[in-house]
């Protein structure tokens, strides 16, 4: 079944394509929902487990009137390497394969409970270095490793 039969095309916004099947929920959590909700014109459309030539089955997230920021795109690409991002402006589609960020700041909680970034009164913003070769990110304060696959569990 072609997804175009399920949801009409959008003229302005972002389409996150080639998300592994049944992972759209994690993708939405990774997006800055606060920003999404601040804009009353934003619509969020989720397609799950639709047929895909490349992946067999996939999820798609369409964000009408919302442009996913580059840093958000980078985190998404880190966790879901198959993801492609289409920015749509006046029906014109720009496909993008986002680059992997070197650092992630303020989006992920350190899994180490004794890390300084987990002490509530300390103004320490969690900061991670991406160590993709090892499949982990590393806290730049306490050195603790977090598997890339487990990032969604620690989103702020």
């Amino acid at each position, binding site marked *: 079944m072609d997804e175009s039969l399920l949801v009409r095309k959008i003229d302005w916004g972002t389409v996150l394509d080639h998300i592994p099947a049944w992972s759209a929920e994690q993708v939405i959590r990774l997006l800055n929902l606060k920003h999404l909700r601040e804009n009353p014109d934003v619509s969020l459309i989720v397609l799950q487990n639709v047929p895909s030539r490349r992946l067999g089955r996939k999820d798609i997230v369409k964000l009408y009137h919302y442009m996913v920021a580059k840093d958000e795109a980078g985190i998404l690409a880190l966790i879901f390497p198959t993801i492609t991002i289409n920015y749509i402006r006046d029906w014109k589609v720009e496909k993008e394969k986002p680059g992997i960020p070197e650092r992630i700041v303020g989006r992920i909680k350190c899994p180490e409970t*004794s890390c*300084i970034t987990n*002490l509530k009164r300390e103004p*320490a913003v969690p900061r991670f270095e991406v160590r993709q070769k090892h499949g982990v990110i590393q806290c730049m304060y*306490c050195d603790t490793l977090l598997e890339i696959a487990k990032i969604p569990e620690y989103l702020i």
Partner: protein
Amino acid sequence: MSGSRAESKTTLPTKGLISCRDLSLSEVSEIFGLAERLVRGEVRLSSSLLGKKVALVFAEPSTRTFQSFYLAAKTLGAEAVSIADPTVSSMAKGESLYDTLKMLELYGASCIVLRHPARGAARFASESVSIPVINAGSGSQEHPTQALIDVFTIRRKRGRVDGLKIGMLGDLRYSRTIPSLCHLLSLYSGVEIYFMAPQILQVRREVEMYLEERGVQFAKIDNSEEMRRVMPVLDVLYVTRIQKERFPDPTEYEKVRGYYVVDSTTLSYLRDDVGIMHPLPRVDELSPEIDHAPNAWYFEQAGNGLSIRIALLHLILGGE
């Protein structure tokens, strides 16, 4: 003390010392060079930090580290300002580390020596103030000045560090001295490390990754048969205490309590010249029956703490 004055020019980072990963071999050699001259009484530094204030912030218990930093500051002529008992400071009222450090900076502290139970506390502190911060223990993460003492002791006793085979026995997971010691040893050529501990106390993955990236050979050994096979090849046996206070689950501690004791039987597996080291304090893992063995280095190791910390404060604070 008599003799020439020490050189005050240094390449040491003026931000202080947060991790041994931040040190180059030439910087380590500079610290060791000055510490060696101090041990031999060849250098006089009695007023090199006159007019400076060294703030000692110890939010965790300490004997050796606190006392040696305090004495080091005094020896150099600096004023030592201490928060050694957080229960009598505003930290007990819930004041943040950040606010405490900012106040000390505003009161004119020249540097902060910090011990704190949180991992990453020293890195955070160094970003929070503009004066140098010296990490005197950041939870179970690091203890870089202890590592300097350890390697300085090895170098003095053995005459070299390159090519040595070093066994690390005990709580390698929660001991903060182990990561720092590994970082520092990675600066030397041909060092081989044997991590000897049960699985739940084995060295953390980030330490392994660091050693792999630096090309340091290491092996993890978790059974006593294999340990006995490795013991005869060691040049140094570094023993650590099980860090009861850092176990998230007390039942896990009970499982490993008393897992190992280094005593005269252990010595029988080792070569006669193998140095036994321990960062102290010890509990039951190191029997007093070997205290008088010629290869029991741990008290001399602790004694070297003062010279290393004098050298470090002098070099970081640009002592005259």
